[in-house]
């Protein structure tokens, strides 16, 4: 491993730590202000309501939208810098880029795919909610398909991304 690769991995670790710190901020603020979607006794009693009446799922979606957004931005910053090596030296770019095809990095890419898919599909839901007066129940139906699409898409994509390493 050369020095450029080590710096890349160091920055990647720093980004992941930054994302974890942001998750902590969202979690703390959710506890302090939003009431939170957490399994306290009063929350659990709300689970007795009709599923379509529960608003917790859209709150979770809002937290996840923020966390995936900050995560994608952290990776984008790193990615802009690592592609910049292409302009200076093809060899430096290639040695740096070979990290992308290692197993841990491929697993990270599966996570990135989930973040992109969830952020994109949930973003379209938010645009639909803004433009059309569809109400909470139908908004939650769309949200369930958002989770379904992003999870299925991630599983299918992960199969393609991980296959060269597994077989």
């Amino acid at each position, binding site marked *: 491993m050369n020095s450029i690769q080590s710096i890349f991995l160091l920055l990647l670790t720093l980004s992941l730590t930054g994302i974890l710190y942001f998750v902590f901020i969202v979690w703390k603020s959710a506890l302090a202000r939003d009431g939170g979607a957490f399994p306290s006794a009063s929350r659990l009693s709300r689970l007795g309501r009709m599923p379509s009446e529960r608003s917790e799922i859209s709150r979770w979606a809002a937290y996840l939208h923020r966390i995936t*957004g900050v995560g994608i931005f952290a990776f984008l910053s790193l990615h*802009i810098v690592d592609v910049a090596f292409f302009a200076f030296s093809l060899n430096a770019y290639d040695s740096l880029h070979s990290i992308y095809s290692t197993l841990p990095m491929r697993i990270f890419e599966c996570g990135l*795919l989930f973040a992109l898919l969830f952020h994109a599909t949930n973003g*379209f839901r938010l*645009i639909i909610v803004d433009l059309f007066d569809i109400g909470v129940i139908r908004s939650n139906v769309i949200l369930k398909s958002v989770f379904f699409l992003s999870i299925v898409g991630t599983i299918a994509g992960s199969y*393609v*991304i991980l296959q060269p390493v597994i077989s």
Partner: protein
Amino acid sequence: MSGFSRVFISRSLTYVALRISGALLAFLALGHFFVTHISTDVADTGSSFVTKRWSSSLWVTWDTVLLASALVHAFAGLVVIVYDYITRETTKHRVLILLASLIFILFVIGLLTIIISVFKIYST
């Protein structure tokens, strides 16, 4: 409100910029991911792959628009997050100026990378 916030952090501008760039990015960013991870294995996306891709004006345009809209979207989204989690006015403005500078630097690095690379590819 300082001059900085009045000019850059108009709430309605942030709102519209987030949604327009977001709709664009769903297509551009997922397309970029698809081309570099699904239709081509990531192990084969070394410098020869990038050279081939950036020989086509479609992909140069694609990546430039992707860079610009991703950074606009990131800044607009971060403004919303900063307004939610930071309450002290001075801290808020310092963080926003820091983020704006970071995003401006990233845009310059990205744009220079594309310009220099395309220039190199066409001159060889």
